[in-house]
């Protein structure tokens, strides 16, 4: 499945109401490590297919959601399942570890 663009507007429907695992990459354009994380998340989205929803949220454009989940360093990656936070990761995460975590929840 392609990477999803999450926003304040669609977060409720796309993440909190979704069934199954959802990975959200909280990022910003000015953040160096986020530029490394971006392509990795993109690959994770491709590898997971329809087994998990994977996407990113720009913390400048969607401040409300970023604040709601206390994102204070980026990249922060949060895995949700059935609308609940399962795991919060701060800093760049590898492709394999993300796939492993999502696969376990799928």
């Amino acid at each position, binding site marked *: 499945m392609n990477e999803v663009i999450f926003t304040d507007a669609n977060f409720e429907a796309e993440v909190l109401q979704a069934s199954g695992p959802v990975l959200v990459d909280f990022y910003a354009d000015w953040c160096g490590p986020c530029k490394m994380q971006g392509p*990795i998340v993109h690959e994770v989205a491709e590898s997971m297919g329809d087994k998990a929803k994977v996407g990113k949220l720009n913390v400048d454009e969607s401040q409300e959601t970023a604040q709601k989940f206390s994102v204070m360093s980026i990249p922060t990656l949060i895995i949700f399942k059935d609308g609940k936070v399962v795991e919060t990761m701060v800093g760049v995460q590898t492709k394999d570890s993300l796939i492993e975590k999502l696969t376990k929840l799928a």
Partner: protein
Amino acid sequence: MSEKKQYDLLIVGAGPAGLTAAIYATRRKLKTLIVSMTIGGQMAQTNEIENYPGIDFSDGLSLSDNMKKQAEKYGTEFAFEEVLNIRKKNDLFIVHTNNNDYEAKSVLLAFGLTPRKLGVTGEQEFSGRGVTYCATCDGPLFKNKTVAVVGGGNSAIEAAEYLSKLAKKVYVINRTDQFRATPILLDKARGQKNIEFYCFTAITEIKGDGVVKSIEIASLQNETKKEEIILDGVFIEIGYQAKTEWLKGTVDLNKRGEIITDRDCVTSTEGIFAAGDCTDTQYKQIVISAGEGAKAALQIYKYIVGREGKVAIPDWGVCELVGTDKTANIKIEK
């Protein structure tokens, strides 16, 4: 997942030293892998670079990205992994990461410096949840919030001045009333109305509930004088250190934990080289690290060619025989 891949050179770190070494090594056809969790290191976190020759102005991200692209152009491979240890197996090094084992004929340690930790209760727990070590990275997430900056050097005062434009209120917590920051920076910070200075003061605890909520500070002149400040973020800017505990027994380190090298970036262990800020070089600058990286790559090229009993065809000025067979004169590449 574990798979073995063999490289001529494995570089740990992707700051100016590692990236420059990769450019030089791959241009000499060494099969090169960079293992790093970030690109650019401290360079990428610098907002304004005005002292890199030939480049009037650059932000650190662009300069880092350009160096990376240049290294990639000549065939450098990248792995975004963390190196955990290096072992010798026969005449190869096994570099063990959180995800793979790589085999390499030579290793270049170029992982720079890591922010120094404060070492107080709550620091680890709230790291990334209000506690941060990079104002330019995380500052924008603290718009209209209250934050504290710990330290009195250039990075601390620069951070305080930068944050004062975003945050509602900035507290500067310093152990003395002496600031190591340059006077011009200090004056700038003192001119900001929303910066409040706490001198002879130390943080004793960072408190919170999921995220940072407050800090407890104590006067260093009067131990019983304690205070709690309600805030949202703590920026720790107390300098940098070489994170080299994992290398004890692998290469010689000095008292500060820096890797001891000779003038050609050679460490105490044959086949392992080091360059840039993680070494005992006195001056830590982007242009110096880049130069050290280039030097290391040339030395490594000589070493790799030498261990195959061949002679390096020098393209850097000095003509010297390497290897044991001094009569050999085999051309390695064009």
